[in-house]
């Protein structure tokens, strides 16, 4: 089971939204990280098959997805960034509607809806209008529709946007359970959302993949580059231009604890700390910025 993106590009007149992306996505959770405007949603839409690549091919198990047609859609569960619904829909009505669109028979749909309402703890709100639900519950409804056809490939575009921490954790748990023997591709700009659950990560910037690998392998690249120090607040300004600050935390009125990314200790009294994916994200984007500044 593998979804292959081979030299996939998408151009809109002068703008290149996705630039020759190559990815071989096999089973497990894949994180697609990138800042807003990096090209994640465009790439996701092409992988879903609702946007045609300007060049390149997308294949599932070696077969082009345009050849697979509805067979590909049959394997697919998709939660778009903008979760839309008709205002008169209740949770159950929405799921019934989506199951009909996914080609399920009435009997199959009924059983699947009941199971998903239970699994995603939506039983209590099944008769309520979606428009009246909180962001987190809406997202769970979105997840439920994506899982209706028991998909082999689950593609989620910014699934955690607008969720509170509790909802985020719950969504992560659902995904971790679901991902066994399946492909789950999650696009997000929130590193912490996928750091703990993604088996593989691809980091995008300006339409290109700038880093790819398992979470641990990517984090390994940052070994020795992440530092923590306590610094007087009035001296912070001079360090800000020299290091990439990941986190600042005021300790008292005059000092602040700073976590930063730099190839060497730049602040006196710095100690090395265990890197995270977020540190890498900051580091990569800084390197990219420098390259741009130098005209590379």
């Amino acid at each position, binding site marked *: 089971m593998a979804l292959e993106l081979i030299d996939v590009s998408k151009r809109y007149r002068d703008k290149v939204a996705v630039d020759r992306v190559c990815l071989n996505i096999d089973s497990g959770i894949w994180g697609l990280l990138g800042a807003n405007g990096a090209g994640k949603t465009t790439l996701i*839409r092409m992988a*879903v*098959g*609702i*946007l*045609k690549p300007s060049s390149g091919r997308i294949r599932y*198990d*070696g*077969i082009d*997805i*345009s*050849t*697979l*047609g*509805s*067979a*590909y*859609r*049959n394997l*697919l569960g*998709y*939660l*778009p960034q*903008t*979760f*839309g*619904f*008709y*205002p*008169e*829909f209740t949770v159950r*009505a929405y799921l*019934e*509607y*989506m*199951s*009909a*669109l*996914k*080609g*399920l*028979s*009435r*009997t*199959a*749909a009924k059983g*699947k809806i009941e199971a998903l309402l239970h699994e995603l703890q939506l039983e209590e709100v099944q008769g309520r209008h979606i428009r009246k639900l909180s962001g987190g519950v809406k997202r769970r409804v979105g997840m439920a*529709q994506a899982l209706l*056809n*028991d998909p082999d490939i689950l593609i989620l575009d910014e699934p955690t946007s607008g969720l509170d921490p509790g909802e985020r954790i719950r969504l992560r748990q659902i995904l971790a359970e679901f991902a066994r023997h399946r492909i789950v591709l999650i696009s997000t700009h929130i590193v912490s959302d996928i750091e703990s659950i993604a088996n593989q990560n691809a980091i995008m910037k300006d339409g290109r993949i700038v880093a790819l690998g398992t979470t641990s392998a990517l984090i390994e690249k940052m070994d020795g580059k992440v530092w923590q120090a306590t610094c007087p607040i009035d001296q912070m300004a001079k360090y800000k231009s020299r290091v990439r600050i990941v986190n600042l935390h005021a300790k008292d009125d005059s000092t602040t604890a700073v976590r930063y990314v730099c190839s060497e200790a730049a602040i006196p009294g710095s100690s090395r700390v265990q890197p995270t994916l977020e540190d890498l994200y900051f580091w990569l984007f800084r390197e990219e910025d420098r390259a741009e500044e130098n005209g590379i």
Partner: protein
Amino acid sequence: MSLNRALREECRVPPNPERIEETMRIARMAMQRSGKRAPRSYSYFIIIQLKRAMPASWILQTLLVLASAVFGPLFIAVHYPAVANDPRFVAPLVGCLSIYIAMSGVYLMMRSFRCNMSEIEMSTMVSTRRQLLAKLAILGMRDIAIFGAVIVAVKQTSQMRVATIAGCIMMPFLLANCIGLTLGHNAPSGSHPMRIATLGIALGLALLLAYSFAPNILNLFSSRAGGAICAALLLLCVIRIGKLNAKLSSMNPVAEVD
């Protein structure tokens, strides 16, 4: 490519390892699907479209229009017989009604864009073409029911010929559909109810002005020229729907091949 087609082609072309491998993959996929998936049901999709995609407010709206279309002429016939028998009043009335019906149809066709449902609907098993056809079929049935009732009601209460009543209905209806579909085709996400309502009101006013300044326009509806204009407008509507379908399909490149 379906398994049957792959196997047929396999027999025709000289065997080569690449082709055999691809056929094997397709066979694996077909086996996987047949063993795992629930049977597809287009009839269930149509029922759900009727039940769920047609909002309660829209059904109520239709019932109101239907009721006013039937009881309105009856009420006028009882209380204002002179007006009911005068085509100068009846024709603009049914014309405006048909514009309203057309505009509510356009609104319904474009609703998935407005409610951000188009993306999620495109990623499902039922192709955009089939979804469009289902909506057209449902709207078509609704419009036939309403216009049938209007024709019967007007015929009962006035001395207008059926052809004239049909012309009074169809010409504004087709014209409104053409304009509305063009609007939807060019800016699907911009098919805001206010925009559609404004267009409907503007067309209604234009129709009333046309009847006021050129009352002889009524004769056109029952003439051959009127029939030809209706046929041309119908053709334009079909072209616009075809273009809308092509646009939706281009937004949804994973073609339905099964």
